[in-house]
């Protein structure tokens, strides 16, 4: 999935976050986890999806620096290309 672009990654993440219970309307690059009611277990599952589908490992220390959807999309996008 080296060619995955940001839009595609964001769409996949939106789908995942929605499945965790987040309101699709509220999901955008600037939305933070708290406002979406996304908790640590959701982030663990998001990391699992990202690893399986993009081959990118999101470790706990990485996730600490990700506050918003955009942070996560950028993280995956940068690593999926390399």
């Amino acid at each position, binding site marked *: 999935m080296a060619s995955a672009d940001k839009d595609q990654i964001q769409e996949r993440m939106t789908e995942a976050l929605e499945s965790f219970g987040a309101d699709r309307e509220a999901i955008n690059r600037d939305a933070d986890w708290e406002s979406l009611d996304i908790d640590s*277990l959701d982030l663990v599952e998001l990391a*699992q999806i990202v690893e399986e589908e993009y081959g990118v490992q999101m470790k706990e220390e990485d996730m600490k620096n990700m506050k918003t959807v955009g942070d996560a999309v950028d993280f995956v996008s940068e690593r999926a290309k390399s």
Partner: protein
Amino acid sequence: MADVNDGPEGCALVTGASRGIGAAIARGLAEDGWTVGVNYRKDQEGAEKVVEEIESGGGSALALQADVSDPAAADALFPPLEERFGTVLVLVNNAGMRADGLAPQLEDDAWDRVIDTNLSAAFRLTRRALRGMMRARFGRVVNIASIVGQRANPGQANYAASKAGMIAFTGTVAAEVARRSVTVNAVAPGLVDTELTEGIGDELLRAIPARRAGTPEEVAACVRFLASDAASYVNGTTLTVDGGMTA
């Protein structure tokens, strides 16, 4: 197959299932409609016999060799099951061992082997299983603990610590994953008639209100309940099955 679970398509994995309680659990889950991974360490013949029994009853099973104390065991157990039967939706951490001795004389090796096999293996396999269970929004982890994890039994400091650890682990993991409809429970057998309890004398039987040892099938019945849809709201608990011994 009777009473097929309504959960998503998948299978069950029982560790240490070539004999005793594990074999009874594997046979019981197969009766409930699960395809069962029958893990064994050395007793291939025993595991294959369990598989044959399940198949002759119209069920489906697969014998899988792995020493669960090996950190790589999850890689030997999960992929073969997942490829053939789908997500492992029921994990029964049953494999266990004893290496008894009074604490002042207990060797490091006896401590480490028991903790590795009984506790660390349960953690690693549960960690691996939860990935699929969380995604499936259904999962049942059942840890076979022991009443020795809840009350003293001189000569088994290592075994007791491993089983008490398992009980504490059970509750905490249950609280972590409950909202994905995954349950994590423990079953704490008392004296059960298996090879592991051979040599335990009649004196102990007098301490059991039921005046007898339990059977592997009586322990399996508890696991079958906890693995069923009927137990969907039972989470993080330890079900004692001991003939009233700790009552």
